[in-house]
C-alpha cells in the first residue's frame, strides 16, 4: 500500500476508530516507516493537546451585559429588531458600509467636489446656498454663545451669595464662639434668606386672554393700576371694524413687584387664557458691579477735587477740570442706569393682550348660479394653466439636470465596479 493509502487509516487510528484489521496493517507499516510513525505521533499529540485545551469561565459581566442588550432588543421596544428581515437589512447595509468604507467615502468626496465645481462654474444657486449655510452657522454660534453666558451669570450670582453668607457666618462665629451647632444652623438659613433678599431681579409677565365682554374688560384692566399702584405704560385697541372682525387690545402696565401675583390673578379671571409667560431676569451681578464702579468714581472725584486745590497754573487746572467733568458724567450715567434698574425692579412690566372671544358673525349671502358657473370656469382655466406651467417647469428642470445626473451616474458606476473587483479578489 502507498503512503497515501495509509493516511486514511491514520486518521481513524488516532481517533481510536480503526478496525482491528486496519490497526494491524498500520502498525506493521509503522514499524518499518519512520515518516508515518512520526506523523501518527505528532497527530495524536495534537489531538491530545487540543482535547486538553481548558474550558474558559464566562466573564463576570457576561450575564449582566447580555441582559442589558436583551432589554434593548426586547420586542415592542425597538421595532426594527422585532422584524428579523428589517434587522438583516440594516446589518447588511452596515456591513456593506464597513467593508467598502474607503470606496464609498472617496466616491462621496468626488461627488461633493464635483457639485462644488459645477456650482462655481455656473455661479448661481451654489453661492446662495453657501451664504445661507454660513448665516445659519453664525446664528447657531450666536445662540450658543448666549446661552452659556446666561448660565454663568446665574452661577456667579449664586457663588456671590454663598460667599457672602460664609463671610457673615464667620463673623458671627467670631463674635459668639460658644454657640451650639443647632443655632448656628438656624443663623445660617437666615443669612441665606438675607442674601436672597438683596438679589436684583427684573420681573416681566405677559398674558394673552380671550374675553367675552370686551369693552368692560378693557376698562377694568385699565383701572387696575389705580387699585394696585403703578401706571399704564401703553395701551392700544385694534379692529372692531363694524363688528366684522375681532377686536383686540394691547395694554402694558407697570405694577409694583409685590402686587404682581395679585394682578396676574385678576387678569386670569378675565377670561380664557391663551398664553401666559412670566420671566425673571437676574441682574444682581451687573447691579452691584455698577454700584461698585460708582463708588470708585466718587473716590476719584474727591481726589481730583483735592488735586484741584493744590493746582497752580491754569493749564493744570484745565486738565483736572476736564478729567473731573468726564468722571462726573460717567457717575451720572451709571447712577441713571441704577435708577432705571431700581424702577424696573420695583415696577414689573405686565403686558396684557385682550382678544374678543365672540367671533364676528358671518351673514348668509345668496349665491347667484350664473356667477357661480362663471367662477368655476375661471377657476378651471387658471388651474389648467398653472398645471401646464408646472409641468413645463418640471421638464425644464429634468432637462437641465441631465448632464449633472450623468456625472453622478458615472461616479456611482465606477464605485460599483471597484467594489465588485475588490469582492472578486477577496473571495
Amino acid at each position, binding site marked *: 500500500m502507498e503512503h497515501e493509502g495509509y493516511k486514511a487509516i491514520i486518521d481513524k487510528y*488516532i481517533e481510536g476508530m480503526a478496525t482491528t484489521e486496519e490497526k494491524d496493517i498500520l502498525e506493521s507499516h509503522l514499524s518499518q516507516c519512520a515518516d508515518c510513525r512520526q506523523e501518527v505521533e505528532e497527530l495524536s*499529540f495534537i*489531538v491530545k493537546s487540543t482535547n486538553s485545551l481548558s474550558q*474558559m469561565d*464566562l466573564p463576570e459581566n457576561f450575564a449582566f451585559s447580555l441582559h442589558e442588550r436583551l432589554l434593548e432588543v*426586547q*420586542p415592542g421596544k425597538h421595532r426594527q429588531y422585532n422584524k*428579523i428581515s428589517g434587522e438583516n437589512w440594516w446589518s447588511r447595509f452596515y456591513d456593506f458600509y464597513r*467593508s467598502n468604507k474607503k470606496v464609498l467615502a472617496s466616491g462621496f468626496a468626488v461627488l461633493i467636489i464635483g457639485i462644488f465645481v459645477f456650482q462655481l462654474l455656473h455661479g448661481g444657486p451654489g453661492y446662495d446656498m453657501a451664504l445661507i449655510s454660513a448665516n445659519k452657522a453664525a446664528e447657531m454660534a450666536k445662540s450658543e454663545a448666549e446661552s452659556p453666558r446666561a448660565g454663568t451669570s446665574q452661577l456667579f450670582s449664586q457663588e456671590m451669595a454663598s460667599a457672602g453668607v460664609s463671610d457673615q457666618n464667620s463673623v458671627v462665629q467670631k463674635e459668639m464662639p460658644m454657640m451650639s451647632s443647632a443655632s448656628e444652623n438656624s443663623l445660617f438659613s437666615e443669612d441665606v434668606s438675607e442674601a436672597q433678599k438683596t438679589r436684583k431681579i427684573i420681573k416681566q409677565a405677559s398674558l394673552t386672554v380671550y374675553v367675552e365682554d370686551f369693552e368692560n374688560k378693557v376698562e377694568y384692566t385699565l383701572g387696575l393700576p389705580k387699585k394696585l399702584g403703578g401706571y399704564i405704560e401703553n395701551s392700544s385697541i385694534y379692529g372692531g371694524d363694524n363688528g366684522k372682525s375681532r377686536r383686540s387690545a394691547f395694554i402694558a402696565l407697570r405694577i409694583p413687584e409685590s402686587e404682581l401675583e395679585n394682578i396676574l390673578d385678576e387678569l386670569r379671571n378675565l377670561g380664557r387664557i391663551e398664553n401666559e409667560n412670566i420671566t425673571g431676569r437676574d441682574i444682581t451681578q451687573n447691579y452691584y458691579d455698577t454700584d461698585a464702579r460708582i463708588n470708585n468714581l466718587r473716590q476719584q472725584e474727591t481726589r481730583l477735587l483735592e488735586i484741584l486745590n493744590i493746582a497752580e497754573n491754569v493749564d493744570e487746572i484745565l486738565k483736572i477740570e476736564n478729567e473731573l467733568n468726564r468722571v462726573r458724567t460717567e457717575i451720572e450715567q451709571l447712577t441713571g442706569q441704577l435708577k432705571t434698574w431700581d424702577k424696573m425692579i420695583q415696577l414689573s412690566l405686565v403686558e396684557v393682550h385682550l382678544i374678543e372671544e365672540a367671533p364676528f358673525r358671518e351673514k348668509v349671502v345668496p349665491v347667484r348660479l350664473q356667477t357661480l358657473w362663471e367662477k368655476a370656469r375661471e377657476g378651471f382655466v387658471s388651474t389648467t394653466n398653472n398645471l401646464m406651467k408646472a409641468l413645463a417647469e418640471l421638464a425644464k428642470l429634468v432637462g437641465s439636470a441631465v448632464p449633472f445626473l450623468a456625472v453622478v451616474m458615472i461616479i456611482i458606476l465606477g464605485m460599483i465596479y471597484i467594489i465588485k473587483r475588490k469582492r472578486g479578489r477577496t473571495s
Partner: protein
Amino acid sequence: LSGDIQLIRRAKQGDIAAFEELIMEYQKKVYNTAYRFFNNAEDALDVSQEIFIKVYTSLKAFKEGSTFSTWLYRIAVNTCIDYSRKRRKIQDVSLDDEDSNVAKNMVSPQLPPDKIVENREIKDAIAKAIQTLPEDLRICIILRDIQGFTYLEISELLDCSIGTVKSRINRGRRALRKQLQLWNIFSKLTSKK
C-alpha cells in the same frame, strides 16, 4: 424537554427571564467555541453575546419540532464564521497589498530552548495554530476536538455530509501539524525527551 418547550414559548413572547434560563446551559459552550475560534476574550465576548441576541430576536423563526440546541449551535457557528470573514475582509482592505496571510505574519511563539517546554506553552501554540486555519476547518476542529461533538452532530450544524466533516477535520489536523512544525514545536519536544 417539555420544560424547555415551555421556556421557548415564553421567550418567544419576549420573556427575557425565560430566555436566560433557556440558554443557561449553552452559554459556556458557546462562549468557549467563540473563544477558541478567535483566541481572544474580547471577540469571544462580543460574538457570543451577538449570538444570543440573534437567537433571541429570531426565536420566532424556531419551529417547535426541531432540536433547540442544534438550532442554537447552528446560529453560533454561522455567526462565528461570518464575523471572522467580515473581519478578514476589513483587514484585507486596510492591509491592501500587504501579505494578509495570517500564518506568515504570525510570530512563532517564543519557547525557551533550554527549559522544559511547559504544558501551557504548548497549549498556547496550539491555540494560535488553530487561529491560522481557514474558518471551515477551524470550526470543525473546535467542535470535534475541543467541544467533543460527534461527526453526525457537526454535519447537522454545518449542514453538510459526514464525509465532508471528516475530511475537514483530517485536513485541519494536518494543517495544524504543518503549522507547529513551522514553529519547531515538535523538534523542541523531542529534543527534551
